């Protein structure tokens, strides 16, 4: 397995429902499974299924996405055979306000699963980007539908760059995006990784519903690459720089600007500012 795995040319394992369910140690997550060779976006498909009443824990997975989405309609690069693109339908009960913390809890769970699988430290860029060696290897997209103050359902979309070779990426992205294979030097079993992510997420999801926010925030903070460093925050028409000082109880980022003023960041894009003397090539 090892010699085969390290060879450059590898035969990608087909993602079939049977292969995924075989040995999957979850009660709900992934037990209802929709696998597509290609779909526009697993999140969009999951929305359609959730509206028709799909049970909690339903997973939608595709070998490739033709219109993979990131935040605010951005594109998620989704080549076939190499990566994982999947979405999970959840039906959390209770205050929608608290569910914002789920972004952090879920990102932490995925990081934990990746770390266990590839043996490299996985860090988190606030709130939901996963980094290995400072490069993004996975991201989460969470979309909920709210009516009358209640969450009807939530779709948790996860994209992991597993065996993508970075030479397949545009040059401009190679400094900021990578894959597990690229960083570990080994081909990673997509199915085993998927199972581990689903198992870790299920445990995290169960404890999320009962644990106090402090515990979730502490676990997240321990893995954070954003806290304590200089960041630039930018979004539609504004920009600040400062030190990422901490998190609010809801999981929002506290930014201390140079003029000592505190800014609470809930939605903007955060860029890690790296001092030039430690800049990577």
């Amino acid at each position: 397995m090892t010699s085969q795995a390290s060879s450059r040319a590898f035969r990608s394992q087909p993602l079939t429902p049977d292969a995924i369910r075989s040995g999957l140690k979850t009660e709900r997550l992934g037990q209802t499974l929709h696998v597509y060779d290609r779909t526009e976006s697993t999140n969009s498909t999951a929305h359609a299924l959730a509206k028709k009443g799909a049970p909690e824990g339903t997973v939608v997975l595709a070998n490739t996405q033709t219109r993979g989405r990131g935040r605010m309609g951005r594109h998620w690069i989704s080549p076939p055979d190499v990566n994982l693109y999947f979405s999970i339908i959840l039906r959390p009960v209770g205050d929608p306000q608290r569910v914002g913390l789920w972004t952090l809890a879920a990102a932490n769970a995925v990081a934990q699963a990746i770390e266990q699988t590839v043996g490299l430290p996985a860090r988190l860029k606030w709130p939901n980007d996963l980094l290995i060696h400072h490069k993004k290897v996975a991201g989460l997209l969470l979309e909920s539908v709210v009516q009358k103050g209640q969450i009807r359902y939530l779709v948790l979309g996860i994209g992991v760059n597993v065996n993508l070779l970075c030479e397949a990426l545009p040059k401009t992205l190679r400094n900021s995006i990578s894959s597990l294979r690229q960083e570990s030097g080994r081909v990673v079993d997509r199915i085993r990784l998927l199972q581990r992510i689903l198992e870790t997420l299920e445990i995290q999801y169960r404890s999320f519903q009962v644990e106090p926010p402090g515990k979730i925030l502490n676990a997240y903070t321990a893995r954070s690459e954003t806290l304590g460093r200089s960041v630039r925050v930018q979004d539609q028409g504004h920009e600040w720089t400062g030190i990422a000082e901490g998190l609010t109880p809801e999981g929002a980022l506290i930014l201390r600007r140079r003029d000592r003023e505190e800014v609470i960041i809930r939605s903007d894009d955060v860029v890690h500012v790296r001092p030039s003397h430690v800049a990577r090539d």
Partner: protein
Amino acid sequence: MNIKELKELIELIQKSQIAELELEKSGVRVRIKRDRAPMVPVPMPEEAPSAPTVPVESPLPQAAPLPSTVPAGWLTLTAPVVGTFYRAPAPDADPYVEIGSTVKKGQILCVIEAMKLMNEIESEWDGKIVEILVENAQAVEYGAPLFHIEPLAPA
């Protein structure tokens, strides 16, 4: 500026077409804004030297407080979460709804983002959007009014 001057100023504006006026005189700044609500002059001291810096809850302007008067029969859809209000799914996309749009119960009206969780907010009623109370990309607090909706059938 004394009370008499202020009163004259308000009367002057009431008679005019001016929507908003800001005036500074001897270190005192006054802003008078015309609204549907009764006009209230807001004296704003130029600088409160001893006041501690108030931490800014959010860099973006907060949603307007609940207007005191909502025309009878209109319904108000409020924010179920704290976050950033978006009228469209992407910056270059068309807004979900405009003023005058007819909406159905369960139709998405906007998104409120918090910690990268995009909350799609659905209409609670069949009706017509008569007012959109928050600007795109503005921060909203829990319970902030977002839309006024005229229901199709009496609620």
